[in-house]
């Protein structure tokens, strides 16, 4: 069945079964491999994307869920994501890097919702994303830094 998806402002028409999770449509059918597989059961956040601005674990939502909605992935760009990228860069955050797509998407959602998050806000927003390398300290610092970078620019 043909389904049309809008990802990062670009339109893709795919022929897949309705119940295929978005993660696999995005990775295997469309070929955007920045969104990662980690657990398949909404436990690790590696597959995080935004759907109409809402943080979503793409491993656990079927493709049908995203029809006529706007999907945002790590291949995309937004004001908050760019500040976060800069802050990730400043703080030399990643180790293996694998979970960082999901971390950055979750952090983008946090900044989209909360202008200046506290440590507690960050704990709450980011605890759905596992980093096995253990870069949490740096991620937290980088989120605060992104806010500083943003405020400096304005």
């Amino acid at each position, binding site marked *: 069945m043909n389904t049309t998806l809008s990802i990062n402002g670009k339109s893709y028409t795919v022929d897949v079964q309705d119940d295929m999770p978005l993660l696999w449509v995005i*990775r295997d059918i469309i070929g955007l491999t920045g969104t990662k*597989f980690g657990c398949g*059961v909404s436990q*690790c956040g590696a597959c995080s994307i935004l759907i109409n601005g809402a943080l979503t674990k793409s491993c656990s939502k079927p493709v049908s869920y995203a029809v006529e909605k706007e999907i945002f992935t790590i291949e995309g760009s937004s004001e908050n994501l760019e500040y976060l990228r800069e802050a990730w860069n400043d703080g030399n955050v990643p*180790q*293996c890097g694998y979970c960082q797509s999901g971390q950055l998407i979750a952090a983008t959602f946090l900044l989209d919702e909360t202008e200046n998050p506290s440590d507690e806000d960050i704990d*709450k927003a980011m605890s759905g994303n596992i980093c*096995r*390398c253990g870069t949490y*300290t740096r991620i937290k610092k980088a989120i605060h830094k992104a806010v500083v970078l943003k405020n400096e620019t304005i």
Partner: protein
Amino acid sequence: MSKVQQINRRDFVKLFGLASGGILLGCNVSSDKKEFIPQVDGTFTPNLFVQIQKDGNIILLASRSEMGQGIRTSLASAIADELEADWKYITVKQATGNAKYGNQNTDGSRSVRTLLEPMRKMGATAKMMLIAAAAKKWNIAEADCKAENHFILNKNTNDKIFFGDLVDEATKIKIPSEESIKLKKNEDFKYIGKTLKSVDLKDFTHGTATYGIDVRIPNMKFAAIARCPVTFGSVKSFDDSSARKVAGVEKIIQLDRIVPPIGQFFGALGGVAVIANNTWSAFQGKLDLDIEWDYGENESFNSEEFQDKLTKRVHAKGKLVPGNRGNVSAAFNDSKNTIEATYKVPFLAHAPMEVPNATAWFKGDAIDVWAPVQDPQTARAELAHFFQIPLDNITINVTFLGGGFGRKSKSDFVVEAVALSKKIKAPVQVVWTREDDIKHSFYHATSVQYLKGSLSDVGKVTGWLQRVALPSIVSSFKPMSDYASGFELGQGFTNNPYTIDNFRLENAKAESNMRIGWLRSVVHIHSGFGNNCFVDELANAAKIDPVQFHLNLIGEDRIIQGKSEYPYSTKRMKEVLKNTAKISSWGKELPENHGIGIALHYSFYSYVATAVEVSVKNGNVKIENIWTTIDCGLALNKDNIKNQLEGAAIFGMSIALYGEISTKNGAVEQNNFFDYRMTRMKDAPKIHIDIMDKMHEPPTGVGEPGVPVVAPAICNAIFNATGNRLRTLPLISMKV
């Protein structure tokens, strides 16, 4: 040991697939004598490479796998420093798996330790050639030239020429002799010992780094494999009628177990493979298989019973391990103050964020593989053995690794992919589900230790008896290896830093019913846990502050392994301990319900001491602060080392608090991150890392040494807060 040479252009292109041109340098590293030594057959066989192109770009071929430890950046920084290069012109390419690169096995925290000097020499050689070229151009003495930030400067006139513009001329310069290479003084380092950002940051933050699971080959298929829940069980029969109906599923194939020959390789477990045109269909098809298994001889394996069995064994006399000193029985008899304790660690899985996966294309007379492997050469040799293809026709393209931690040293997933590609005559990517990863790992061994110690009237340790039972890694290569091996006991059991006159170590039987492997810091996890918890118990029995007690126990400055290239110095051990005590304000008054604990350990030639502050409320433990000091000799990239140790603190917390693989009727009970839990952001403490300034000592391990100290420091802190001794990991199942 590492002669730098110029490479013939044609060879370079042929061998390494890099564009020709520019200055091509290689050198041969065979210093890691214990391991692989490249064949030298009269011709030059370099295994480290650097290329300086006409546009000024410098390309380094990284021979070690990148799995988050920052090796690509560290290696590049050494060359760039000696070469006086501008960091922005440095690019790192990943080498394929091939013996021509020397030992590529990325484990044992050894890459920097073995590669730093050759990397520096290559950088220095290239710089000398560029200087010679500039001197010739200006018709001045080489001594009147110097390299600075990607230019050669004329000291007399301040004229300068860009590196790239000197490349043509420099290639005509005779390569300087090894004796003439002058390395920089430590105080002149620009990158080494400083903070450099990862060369891969941009890719990591844009989702453009290619991990194994991201590899896409035209016409490739995707595969998932149902493996027997019990280790080494096999397929009796199966019904695939439902699986075949799943949209996207194309083929179902039975895969027999590939048994490794004794003493080497990993083989593959076998099972039933579902081939599909996308990953999800393969996963779904696998769930729909109805398989009857022959569970085999491991069906009766229950990990809880096994731990009880090991406990009984360490409570009886074991096999004496060489290195016995004095007479512990006499020491115990003479003491009015003896204590004993039993410590337990469960089986653990690595659970890297990127599950095991590999893409393979069996082409009849050749094999191409793309995979996240820590040890591409073993993978390659294994494929040559099992598939009878000449080594030269096998290419292992090493992708980024989404975490390794030892799991990706074992290339069973590569063997699976090749076996399937051979059967379906097409390229195929095998992807493990997270459940596959948790249920079919090469597990970190469980262990039980019994310790008994005696104290003199003034609180000196007079006797130390330690009995250890842990299934050996060797059992994965040689069946019936039922005792921990010498190399395993050498990881912290036979070589603790303590001064004890009467010392006895015994080894108890521990058979294997699962595949046993190595996990970040390996047997040091057991020795670091037992040693540090027990010393804390002795300190308490002696009524002496634990830091002071550790210092007393280590005793005089001395060298423990005198013959080693990296002598084990008790002085350096005490220095990190004192430093950690200082940065953690050891001894200060803590808030109510808070406690602090300390642990120290020597591993991979590095010295680490960690203090942990916990708070305990209503039986819930929260880790508040972790302070770690490392002495790793020359600190090549300080921020990367900090990052590694911060990560080790979190990794160690996961082991201490949550990590447990258990089996019932031979099958692993855990499934995914909901029951094999990891430390998360909300659990993460404040982490403080200090690196000792030891720039004149050789560099030693960084990736692993931060792990073994964390669990014991947490347990000691909980005791300090509550008076409860916790001796069994993980702590989540314990009442605090």
